[in-house]
């Protein structure tokens, strides 16, 4: 996308120092295409559905038949605005252009796309750690059909015996999200893509499935010595997973550094990531680039969403992952980018955790339990929040040990709910009261005199043996934490 290419030498954000290759830093910007979750195509009434029988979701507009004209899908515009607003963009009046080039799966021999006046501009996406990656634009365009090249070499059109074209995808609405080159490590790139994916799902703009192609990512990669002007960049295509993205960027950065260090120059080109050999390969050089002859699409009129519509879309936006992490972090005292907060928000279980907390249960314990035991539960867990709260209350009041609590939790999750007290009784988990525990601890101190004296001499390693002996004597009913606390207090007393 040429507008994105004209990236000026504007100052990037502070570079993380954790990723340097022989004194070079990475400069990376991502271009992400997402298919919008509309019922119909961007400019026609054919269904927008993945996986249907080839060439069934077609019509005169989709096939580019003579005389057919595009009519803009209002829902696609709304979803594009949701994406823009969720990415802190300005929604502005926009226009459509024709991008002209010949390819068999491009029915009109031009793609209708937004060019110099995109619907969304100048936003940002905040990574979980707080770094902001600029968003240059997020614009609407139509997808192409899908070609399958049969015979010959490696699925490419050149050298194939024949090609099959499925036009079901032609005209499917896309939003292309063009990020600024603010990414300085492969991990940031992964975080960016993962965060973007969560946002797209949260605003219900796309199912964002990389494996089905409803989210596709190209990476622009260059390297430079800190403080120097931007290096020549290469665009990496065919990155099919978030994991591959990091690998492809790292490979490409190292390749460029090696070239520069051996005295060669980087050619501006498009490169293809090969998952099997873990390398990038030249796809086409700048000299082969098409002249797209962009001009204003005369079959469409300017898109000027009325302010009230934009505001209604903004007001209807759900809590975004970042806000939800902050909310959960605040409630639990955990860091917003801690693993449990990230995992639980990504699964959409944060509301659930908070509602368990609202029932008087310890919210940190709720977070830990949900993170550990709710991996398969989705955003609407079947276990009633009250049941988990009941379990946690038993646990925190010392009536169940954490080991027992975990067992009961497993019972509750597999049964889709249950009364923790009743389940504990059924399993014979008796509450061990404080007095009984003190008695047990004193018995162990007496029987393990050697360990006790080492412990008293300051050898903390000896504590493990003491705690283990108490647990064994209690047949697992003692709470390890309570035992430790008792031992510590007896040593100092």
């Amino acid at each position, binding site marked *: 996308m040429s507008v994105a290419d004209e990236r000026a030498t504007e100052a990037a954000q502070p570079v993380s120092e954790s990723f340097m290759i022989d004194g070079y830093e990475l400069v990376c910007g991502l271009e992400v295409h997402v298919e919008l979750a509309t019922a119909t195509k961007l400019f026609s009434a054919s269904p927008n559905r993945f996986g249907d029988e080839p060439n069934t979701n077609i019509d*005169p507009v989709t*096939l*580019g*038949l*003579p*005389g*057919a*004209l*595009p*009519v*803009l899908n209002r829902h696609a515009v709304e979803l594009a605005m949701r994406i823009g607003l969720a990415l802190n963009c300005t929604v502005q009046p926009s226009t459509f252009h*024709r991008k*002209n080039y*010949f390819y*068999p799966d491009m*029915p*009109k*021999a*031009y793609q209708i796309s937004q060019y110099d006046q995109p619907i969304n501009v100048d936003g940002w996406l905040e990574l979980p750690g707080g770094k902001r990656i600029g968003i240059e634009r997020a614009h609407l365009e139509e997808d192409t059909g899908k070609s399958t090249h049969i015979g010959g070499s490696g699925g490419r*059109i*050149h050298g194939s015996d024949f*090609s099959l*074209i499925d036009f079901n995808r032609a005209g499917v609405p896309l939003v292309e999200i063009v990020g600024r080159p603010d990414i300085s490590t492969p991990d940031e790139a992964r975080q960016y893509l993962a965060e973007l994916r969560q946002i797209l799902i949260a605003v219900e703009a796309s199912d964002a499935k990389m494996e089905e192609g409803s989210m596709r990512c190209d990476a622009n990669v260059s390297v430079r010595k800190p403080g120097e002007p931007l290096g020549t960049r290469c665009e990496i295509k065919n990155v099919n997973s978030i994991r591959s993205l990091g690998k492809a960027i790292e490979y490409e950065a190292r390749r460029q550094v090696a070239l520069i260090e051996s005295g060669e120059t980087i050619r501006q080109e498009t490169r293809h990531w090969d998952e099997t050999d873990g390398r990038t390969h030249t796809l086409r050089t700048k000299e082969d680039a098409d*002249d797209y*002859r*962009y*001009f204003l699409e*005369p*079959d*469409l*009129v300017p898109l000027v969403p009325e302010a009230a519509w934009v505001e209604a879309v903004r007001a209807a936006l759900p809590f975004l992952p970042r806000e939800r992490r902050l909310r959960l972090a605040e409630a639990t005292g955990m860091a917003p980018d801690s693993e449990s907060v990230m995992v639980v928000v990504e699964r959409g279980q944060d509301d659930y955790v908070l509602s368990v907390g609202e029932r008087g249960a310890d919210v940190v314990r709720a977070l830990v339990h949900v993170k550990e035991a709710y991996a398969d539960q989705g955003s609407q867990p079947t276990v009633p929040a009250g049941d988990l709260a009941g379990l946690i209350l038993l646990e925190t009041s010392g009536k169940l040990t954490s080991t027992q609590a975990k067992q009961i939790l497993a019972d509750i999750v597999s049964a889709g709910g249950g009364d923790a007290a009743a389940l504990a009784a059924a399993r014979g988990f008796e509450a061990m009261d404080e007095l009984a525990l003190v008695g047990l601890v004193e018995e162990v101190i007496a029987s393990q005199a050697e360990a006790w004296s080492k412990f008293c001499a300051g050898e903390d390693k000896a504590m493990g043996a003491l705690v283990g002996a108490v647990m064994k004597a209690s047949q697992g009913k003692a709470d390890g934490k309570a035992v430790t606390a008792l031992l510590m207090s007896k040593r100092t007393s």
Partner: protein
Amino acid sequence: MSDQHSDSPTCVGVPSGVPTTASEIARLVKFSEVSAVSVVDAYLRRIEAFESDVHAFNLVTAETARASAQRIDAEIAAGRNPGPLAGVPIALKDNLCTRAVATTCSSRILDGWEPPYDATVIERLRAAGAVFVGKTNLDEFAMGSSTENSAFGPTLNPHDLTRVSGGSSGGSAAAVAAGFATVSLGSDTGGSIRQPAALCGVVGVKPTYGTVSRYGLVAFASSLDQIGPFSTTVRDAAEVLQIISGHDERDSTSIPQGRLDLVSVLERGVEGLRIGRISDLPGGADPEIESRLEEAFDALRAAGATIVDVSLPSMTYALTAYYLIAPAEASSNLARYDGVRYGLRVDAADTNAMYAATREAGFGDEVKRRIMLGTYALSAGYYDAYYGKALKVRRLISDDFDRAYRSVDVIVTPTSPVVAFPVGSKVDDPLSMYLCDIYTIPTNLAGHPAMSVPFGTGEAGLPVGIQILAPTLGEQTMFRVGAELERRATERFPGGR
């Protein structure tokens, strides 16, 4: 005005024994005074007699026309309203998509293609009871001013079979002049309705851009193309335009408004109207055409209008701007004819070679010339100097018109600087061919309506058309002036049309 007709054979005329205007046919058919079948048969007989001389059609749909007429007669017999164009024989320019009927654009590249859908105008005319007699010849993809750029040979002028019918809608103009259809539809990108109407001595209207849906019109230059009617009378043009106009949600450039109301204003006259005469009109028109223009002003003055001089200084650049903008859009619009999905395919070693071979064989010289012009004008490094500058000129022309319409209601000019010219006389000189549209092109760039009304004859007794220009959605005033010129022309040139 002398009627110095040449010795050349003519095919001008009307079918015998049946009414010959749309309003008359519809009225008589509706009240069963004439059957739709007898009307269409009379027209088909004329086609059979003279079509081989004129070559107005790429395809005559005699059987489906008779079947439609029978259906209309049956509707009437059953007591149902057959519609305002009941039984009216209509010819369609062959760049209008007709379901399951070959639509060629007079190009080999669409060989064998039958659209799976009807253009919006076809749906509307059919619903009004029209009977389609055939698809008319045109310059390939509507690029030309003589119909000589048709892959299937030129359409000849019914007034003089050695001369051209004009273009690009020459087939539609000739079909009406020859009495093969009561009315016809054409498309006008730079004058392609008005110029052949003038050369064939019939009425032709290009409405305001966005008034008639382009859905199903095979695009030449999308920002300029409009569909409009040809007819023998101003009233018939008004009737047909009313029916095909009005918003269509399938065309995003369609103006969100109802149908035009035109027939009701035709008798209002021109008393008090201010008629613009362009003081800096680019010259070069035949002297006899200049005389007819002066007579038109005299006639309108006599009818109570005031003639006011206006200046359109940017008009001289219109032709240049048009020949950048229209080819630029065409280069994109015609890129889809690649042999992959429909129409002609010439097989070759690989995909790019197949594209090249298909387009080499499928397109004629003028189409190739314009694709190259347009591709060049849009290319990186040339865009600003050519296409970009042409867009600025387009804006200046609109501004000129806006300024002029502050002091006048309509502007009157010749439609064409020349009468019908001999076949072959301009084919090797594209520039002189392009100059045929010097008076019609500015209207398209501004998106305004314009119409051509026959007004006497010129060199060799051939028809002269007078053009009426109006501002956006100024069709009512335009038709009042057109109707007045029609009345005055008939008085002045009795018997001629």
